[in-house]
Each structure stands twice: as C-alpha cells, then as structure tokens.
C-alpha cells in the first residue's frame, strides 16, 4: 500500500518537473527575453550586461534549476507588457477565478446529482425524458455559445443580470471577494451557469446511469421488502452507492473547470487568470503564458494525485488489483 502511494507520488513529481521543463523552454527560447526587455535602441554593452544578469550564459541545466527554484519562490519574472511581476498579476486575479470555479463546481455537483436522481427514478416520465434529451444539446453546445446565449436572454432581452465584470468586490485581506455584495452575486450567476453546465450534464448522466444500475440490485429489493419508505431507499441506500464514481469524476472535472474558465472569463470579461492567459496568448506575452502553464499544470497534477489516492482509500478492489499486478 505504502509502496503504491510512493510510486504514485514519484510519478506526480516527475510530471511536475516535465511541466516545469516545458514552461522553462518556453520562457527561455520562445520569443527573445533580451529584446523584449530592452527594446531596439539598446547598446551591445547593455545587452551583454542583461544577458549576464539574467544568467542566459550559464549552462542549460543550471538555468533550468534556477527557474525551478525561482518558481518555487513564486517568482516568474516580469510580464513583457506593462513590466509588472507576473506573480503579482496572478495573485491579484486568482481570487476571481477560484470563486467562479468553486461556485460552478458546487452548482454542477448539486444540480447534476439531483437531476440525475430524478431522471433515474422517473425513468419514463415526460419531464425526465425532456431533461435527458436537452442534456444532449447541452453537451454539443460549445461553452462560449452558452455564455453568449445567456447574455442575450438574461442581460439584453430581459435585463435581469449584468453581462460582464464582477460587480462590486470587498477586500478581505489580500482576497477580493464578490460573494459579499448583491451586485457581486448577481454578476456571478451567468458565468457560473455557463462554466458549470457541461459538468452538470456530465454528472447528471453519470448519476442516472449508476442509480439505474444500483436500483436493479438485490439489496434495494430487500430494502423495499422490509417496508422502508421510498425516500430512505433512494437517498439512504441507492444514492450512497453511486457516490464513489461521482466524486472521482467531479474531482477530475475540477481541472477542466479551471481550463474552461478561460473561455467563460473571456465571454463575461471576468477579471481572472484565464482572461490574463488569453490576453497573453494574443500578445505573445511569454512569461505570463509560462507561469500560467506552471500553475495550472501543478493544479492538475495535485488534483489527479488526490483523486487517485482517494480512490485507493475508498475502493478496496482497486487497491487489491494494483497489489496483484505488482506481485506478479
């Protein structure tokens, strides 16, 4: 067991170094850091001084090592545009993205699970069928189109909700939150739905499939035979058994939510790290791109690791399977 955990940990660390290597290569070789920092009129002496100061003459592995050490200290260099430290830019924008991602993830899990249970219980009902077929359209709709259509309906036609920005924010320490003001909450509604809709349909379909599978099993029939109420059977017995795969998928989808936040943030001009990244791609701002890659890469590796370890802890079948493979 311990061996598996250590192997899994080693794998994650290897991937992290790989991600760091890719962002290092980007940082070092895509675009020219010296030209970008000095401009056209610099003298040769100035250039040489800067090259020396940046350590660009050192052997490659030393430069890579230095890059990793600086990244661990949260130093990603300066943005080419505006010359601000990238770390400050990220810190300033991270709360916006995290709030959006968390709210959509919770929304997706709650509504997705509830709809999944409903469509499984009322399998042939009209409403359940309607929900199932509209979920297919939901899967085919690109995220940005969902956002644009929501803006059209709720901001332009009905005028209920704001179409861009975060509304008023309140500063709590270094964290600027939009969750404490009315305009902040109102601004959050459309982006959160846009970002969470795909994950919601995914979780709904998964819960439905798992519920249908479990409702067929003997222990459910026995529970009914014992005279338990429908509610206890559905929520106490059946739902509990569907949760392992749901938690796994939800955990893995957390990474996807962060990636798709780029799209949602652009549609709603939400001032988060995703919008920062897409602007960086547009203006070829390499330090910002490389820092974003490093950040998101780390996040993904950590999420995957946690999900895998949780899975090992929860489901004994997987644990035994892995052990057997190792012993043979």
């Amino acid at each position, binding site marked *: 067991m311990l061996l598996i955990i250590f192997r899994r940990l080693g794998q994650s660390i290897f991937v992290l170094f790989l991600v760091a290597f890719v962002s290092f290569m980007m940082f070092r070789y895509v675009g020219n850091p010296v030209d970008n920092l000095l401009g056209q009129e610099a003298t040769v002496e100035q250039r040489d001084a800067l090259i020396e100061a940046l350590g660009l003459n050192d052997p490659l592995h030393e430069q890579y090592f230095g890059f990793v050490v600086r990244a661990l200290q949260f130093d990603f260099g300066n943005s080419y545009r505006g010359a601000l430290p990238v770390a400050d830019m990220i810190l300033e924008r991270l709360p916006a993205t995290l709030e959006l991602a968390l709210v959509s993830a919770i929304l997706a899990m709650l509504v997705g699970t509830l709809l999944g249970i409903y469509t499984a219980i009322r399998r042939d009902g009209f409403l359940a069928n309607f929900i199932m077929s509209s979920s297919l359209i939901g899967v085919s709709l690109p995220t*940005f*189109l969902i956002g644009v259509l929501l803006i059209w309906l709720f901001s*332009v036609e009905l005028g209920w909700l704001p179409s861009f920005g975060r509304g008023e924010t309140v500063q709590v320490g270094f964290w600027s939150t939009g969750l404490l003001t009315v305009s902040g909450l109102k601004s959050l509604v459309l982006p959160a739905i846009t970002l969470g809709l795909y994950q919601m349909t995914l979780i709904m379909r998964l819960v439905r499939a798992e519920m249908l599978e479990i409702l067929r099993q003997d222990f459910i029939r026995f529970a009914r035979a014992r005279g338990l109420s429908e509610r206890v059977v559905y929520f106490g017995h059946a739902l509990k058994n569907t949760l392992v795969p749901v938690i796994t998928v939800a955990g893995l989808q957390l990474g*996807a939510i962060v*990636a798709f936040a780029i*799209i949602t943030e652009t549609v709603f001009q939400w001032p988060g790290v995703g919008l920062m990244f897409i602007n960086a791609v547009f203006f070829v701002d390499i330090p910002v791109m490389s820092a974003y890659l490093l950040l998101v890469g780390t996040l993904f590796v950590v999420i*995957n690791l946690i999900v895998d370890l949780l899975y090992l802890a929860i489901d004994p079948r997987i644990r035994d399977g892995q052990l057997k493979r190792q012993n043979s």
Partner: protein
Amino acid sequence: MSGEKSLMSRFGESDFFYSFKRSPVTLVSFAVVLLLILLAVFADLVAPTNPFDVGSLNLMNGFTPPMQPNAFTGEVFFLGTDDQGRDLLSAIIFGLRVSLFVGLTAVAFAMLLGVSLGLWAGYRGGWVDSLIMRAADIQVTFPSILIAMLIFGIARGLLPPSMRDELAISVLIISIGLSEWVPFARTVRGTTLVEKEKEYVQAARLIGLGSGQIMLRHILPNVLSPVLVIATITLALAIIAEATLSFLGVGAPPTEPSLGTLIRIGQDFLFSGEWWILIFPAATLLALALSVNLLGDWLRDTLNPRLK
C-alpha cells in the same frame, strides 16, 4: 455475400444501412451534415455575394435586418447584413468553409499521428510502447482545448509577427490536431496488441516480411474500424475547438473569418439590438456540431458497441 452482387446492392442489404434507415435522427443529422459540407465546398457558386470582395460592399447596406428591405438602398438580404453591409448568408457559407476545412484537416492530422504512434507502440512494445503511452497518459490529464491554446500561443511566439496571420490557419490545424491524437493511439494500440498475436501476422513474419510492411499492409486494415468512430466524434470536438479559439480571438485571422469569428463579431452588436449578426452563425455552428455528434453516437453504437 455472393460475388455477382454489386457493391451498392450489398451495401443496401447490410445491417449497417438497415440501422441507418431505421433511425430518423441519424437520417436528419446526415442530411444536415451533407448539406453543410456541400454548401462549404461550393461556397463560390452558392453564396449570393463574395464577402471578401471589399469593392462590392456598400456601407449604406449596414445593419439591414433579415428579410426586410434596407432603409436607404431598398436591397433585401435573406439573413440580413453586418455592420459593413456584408451579406450575412454569404459570410456564414464562407465561414462554414473555414470551420469545416480546419476541423477535417485537424482530425486527419490527429488520425495520422495517433494511428501511426498506436500501431508502432502496439507492434514494437518495450520502451517505444512505454514512452508513447506515458506521453498519452500525461497529455489526457490536461483538457485538449488548453493544450491547443498553449501550442497556438507557442507557435505565435516562434513565428515572426508578419507571418502570424498568414500561417494562422495552419497553426490552428496543427495545434488542434496535436491535442486530439491520444484516443486514436490508445485504441489502435489496443487492437494491434490483439492482432499481432494472430496467425496471419505470424505467417507474414515467417515469409520474411519486414515489420514496416506487416504493420501497414497486414495489421493496419484490421484495426481501422474503431478509428472511423473516433474520427467522427473527434470531428465534432475539433469543430468546437476551432470555433472556441476563433471566438477568443486567437484562432482564424480576420481575413478568413470562421463561424467562431462571426459569433465574436456578432457579440459586439448584441446590445444594440442587431441580434441576427450573432444568432445565425451561432445556429449554423450548433446545427453542425450537434449533427456530427449525433452521427458519431450512432456510428459508435452500430459499428462498435464495446466503445460505449
């Protein structure tokens, strides 16, 4: 399967065609996809005007609502016009051409890459296999749209600014293709592992054929049927990925607007009430993505129920 029957009549009697005929949803999606492909291919003939011919544009025609005569010139446009007086129907048909072209070539590229790597990994085994499959494992932990964006960004950084717009379409194809190769490689590797143990492969090896020839001439034809299913599903993903990148402004250049670019332009006019500039390109994209998705689902269920 008697030899006298023609290929057409054999196809007409097959289970494949039977299940196709019996599913109205599939028939409709096939018709939609076919119609859209034909529109895109014959864009020059079908489109009422050439949206790229700046000389033919009349600014007076700007913001004409669909099916209504323009207030100044009296001209009628079926789907209306955009801010520069460009006929929206023509813009959509030409945008469709860009979207489909990028989608299809990106899938072809992903397929070529994925199938070759999968075949090689499965047949050679050993370190080649481990290396390719580990790379695939790492890549799938990242969403493909993110990978496509990163590759697009890096390519923009490597290219001199003057060539960025010119090569944008090729860069787009390569970045989407590189982000979608994994499912092809995994499936082909799996089937190759099974196929290479079979007697016909051993026989081919016995008569002294080289491994390249065995892989291409003997194993490849036997591992292709799931590839078709994956290609269709990937096509929907690729079309959406292209539209997304173009919508974000990091995809197709302004000189070659795709459906995603048109939607981005349309979003600007949403607040001033010119809804048609947004809604018609959006509806076209939705019809395309949904039909390809439905076709892919049906193909998967019919050809290879195991993939579900």
